[in-house]
């Protein structure tokens, strides 16, 4: 959050395509504020995260105050109000995964990527976040990398996925 008020010119912040997509959502809801979450997702899908400028532009487009929009954006863990890497790793640390030693697997990820929860790799490829459940307990431990659900994690899989990360970066 910045100290200075930010002047937001709606047109220069949101793309026509984004506005078009938001307007499509608006047509499905009786109140403009009903499209708030979708609007945030639309912008995040295209930019990876929601900046202050975007937040205010969306708020204005939906006749909401920045405070209301911020309330919604910050309520949901998966709306990112800070820049994230190209792919977000949503790592489940809930009970089934924990029983299956997700802690050890997480340590492996951290070792390969040199990041802890909430951090992004220096090459900006990955951001690691914990998540309470991915609904795949039968295949625990699990995580999502970007849009892909990866199940039955073990050290070998982690190595396969991230083992060359540091080398790749130095290339």
């Amino acid at each position, binding site marked *: 959050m910045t100290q200075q008020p930010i002047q937001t010119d709606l047109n220069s912040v949101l793309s026509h395509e984004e506005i078009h997509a938001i307007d499509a959502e608006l047509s499905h809801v009786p109140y403009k504020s009903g499209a708030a979450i979708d609007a945030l997702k639309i912008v995040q899908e295209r930019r990876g995260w929601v900046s202050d400028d975007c937040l205010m532009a969306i708020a204005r487009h939906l006749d909401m105050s920045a405070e209301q929009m911020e309330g919604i954006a*910050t309520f949901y863990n998966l709306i990112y109000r800070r820049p994230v890497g190209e792919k977000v790793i949503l790592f489940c640390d809930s009970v089934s995964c924990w029983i299956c030693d997700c802690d050890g697997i997480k340590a492996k990820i951290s070792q390969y990527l040199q990041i802890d929860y909430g951090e992004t790799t220096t090459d900006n490829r990955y951001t690691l976040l914990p998540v309470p459940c991915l609904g795949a307990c039968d295949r625990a431990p699990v995580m999502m990398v970007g849009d892909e659900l990866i199940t039955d994690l073990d050290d070998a899989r982690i190595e396969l996925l991230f083992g060359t990360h540091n080398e790749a970066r130095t290339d």
Partner: protein
Amino acid sequence: MPNITIDGQTLEVKEGDNILQACLNAGLDLPYFCWHPAMGSIGSCRQCALVQYQNPSDERGRIVMGCMTQVTDGARFSLDANNAVEFREAVVESLMLNHPHDCPVCAEGGECHLQDMTVMVGHRDRRYRGKKNTHRNQYLGPLIHHEMNRCITCYRCERFYRDYAGGTDLGAQASRDRLYFGRQQDGILESEFSGNLVEVCPTGVFTDKPFLADFSRKWDLQSAPSICGGCGVGCNIAPGERYGRLKRVHNRYHNDINGYFICDRGRFGNSYVNADQRIDYAGIQDADGRFTAVDQASAIDTAGVWLKSAKIGGIGSPRASLEANFLLQTWVGADQFSSGIADIERATVDRQLQILQSTRAINPSIKQMELADAVLILGEDLTHTAARVALALRQAVRNKSLAMAKQMGLPSWQDAAVRNLAQDALSPLFVVTSYTSRLDDIAQRTVTLAPDEIAEFGRQLAARLQGEPAQSPLIEELASSLAAAERPLIISGSSMLQSNIIDAGAAIAEALCLDNPQTMLSLTAPESNTVGAAMLAHANNLSLEGMVERAVELDVLVILENDLTRRLDAVSMQKLVDSGTKIIALDVIENATVEHANMVLPAASFAESQGTLINHEGRAQRFFPVFPPAEQRLPSWQWLLQLAALSGNSQLAALTQFDQVVDACAASQPAFAHLNEVAPDRRFRDRGQKIPRQTHRYSGRTAINAGVSVHEPQQPVDHETPLAFSMEGLNRDQPSTLIPFVWSPGWNSNHALQKFQAEVDGPLKGGHSGVHVLVSSANGIDHPGAAVGNAPTDLWQLVPVHRLHGSEELSARSDEIAELAGDAFIALNAETAGQLEVAEGDRLKVIANGDSVSLAVKIVDRMAVGCAGYSYGYAATRGLIAGAGADLQRDTDWRPPQPSLIATDRQSMAVDRGSPHV
């Protein structure tokens, strides 16, 4: 009425109430946080837990939330059941996980609802040893201090700020234990009611910033029942004092007027009482224009010489008490007296009085206004001219949602459910003004018209309501909406300084009255005692302008608490000064009129004196001194009695005490007959004692002045009021007019109020307070004279734009209000600004009546065609006259002055005052 059983005790309770209300009404202490009597229940804090039993044989019961459970006949509950007691303690313990143990440095300490509830549930030992959450606090402007770590996430702040007061820039953010209440980014809170957060927050997240900088504990404050002087509404306030300084103002509950909430002008606009510019000594002006300070006796001696067999005139004031105005008029005689209101305003005020004395419509209290189901506002930006009324209208538009809830069988206190059901359904509110109003966001329709067009629009609407065909679809829409309402409310007032708008409003109300006796008509009054001054007016009175002409014939002119430079143009003011008459000015604070006086007498402020004010609805209310005036100051009524005696006046010679002055005033006209019932007189005793202004824990009474002298002075004795400058006596069960502060065992916060209420959210146990002195004959208003209009011109028509912070004289002398007032401005709509090729913040030369003033451009959403608004009551716009034509030219020569005044910048204040009031 249903009966319920609580721990074996059978209680008769009010149908539809929830159990929490029922418990509080029964005097049972059931702790709570998120519930608020004016805002209902959301069941979020889980504090008011108790056990409900299913049937007579149920011995286990189940935990329910008191605030979410409606009473039903025969229901059985327990507060004392072990699991309920443990549950309530566990809730507080869980809140304490993150609540800092910083009570000693917290401004809420000693009047903290969280402290009270923690003690009430018996939670003492903290078991949690981990780290507490910490948050970043925000800068929220000069009024409110933010300390987010203390938050217990009850949501009351957001519910008040957004749901109740219509603010948009404060809200809940994030979730779980990261929940945060604040703005999206640092900045000044926009709501004119932000100060109520101080009282709404159950702990110290939002505290009174100016008070924090000059702090005393509640138990160390000396308080008195008082009336806000900020506008004509007359909200009840409870100012607190220590060390001779007015420390803070809290809301003082009045069931019919302000309820639990006041505006920020009322709460923060009184620190002028402590200002360096207060007049401490009498002063006599030398030939070279310098004032020499003299003591009371010397001032009286000199005045005696001047007044002996002199021809004396007097100018009263709509911000001085009824008694002081009465004394001055009685002393100098009605034909040598002016009420101190300029002609342009007097015309509207007099007309207003005539209407209220004859209308068939109900002249409503704010409580009644909240029940309106259709509202029309003519010509007023109420949030800036009668803020508390605007807040009431935000509740009135919810009547539609309450009706929807009733249909569904949903109790009105089910706040979240009712709001969810109603979404944005609102009762109709129509705003017909010349420029943007702060209620536009809840208006069904806004209409932007020049002042004369507003009057014409109103006239057409009244004609339609009397059966004539509508002139436009818009008129038809408003007419059918108002006619369909059960309790329509028409609001107008004098802020545009045009009586034809008031006439139009009255005509609409009268027309509605033909079919609907529940029609309400409310007219705002500009100053705290405008109605009182108008009621005192005598047919022989001089107008203010007339007094300027008369001055040459007078030897002495006495000006009572009135800065005439705010009302007269510079030429007239100079004429008055040049008239050769000796001017004696009584006032509380230095101003431009005082500078012209030959003698200045230091008057006590509202916080150091007593008097009666008559509000916009004609309700007379008494304010009492919070602390004795500093040594050389006297209340104006005492100065006037002394001066009258010097001049040999025999009529007032018998009066020495305030109660006698009230009696004399009461005898002066039939309308004032019940003036001595406004509040108990000085002889009032409760169990043999006066009502104490100090709490029973007031500390250091004999040590406060030890730095000056170790001899313990006697406590000041109050000979004039039923209150004592003392902690002896009982603050309980007294008449409602005499409640200096609320406190009850176990209830140190302002929630102790419920112990003073006859029932939750109901009237006070001490009965009504205030007396209606303005009673309508209900004969109907006379046909208004020909509407006085402004001649059409090629020039821009100037319309006064009122600002809550800046337009009122005395509050604008408080540092924080001055900071918020900002620079004087000229308000234009975007189209006009484009035409003149100016943008927000650019300067325009406003040329009117031969004068030119440079003002900052402010772009507003709505401004009537051909009109330009000027910030009313600001020093820079003093020469501008409402309705006058003006030429607007780009000001390219203008250069910014020294840094503008900010509250904390004492040094720059001492050097040069760039504020709007000098």
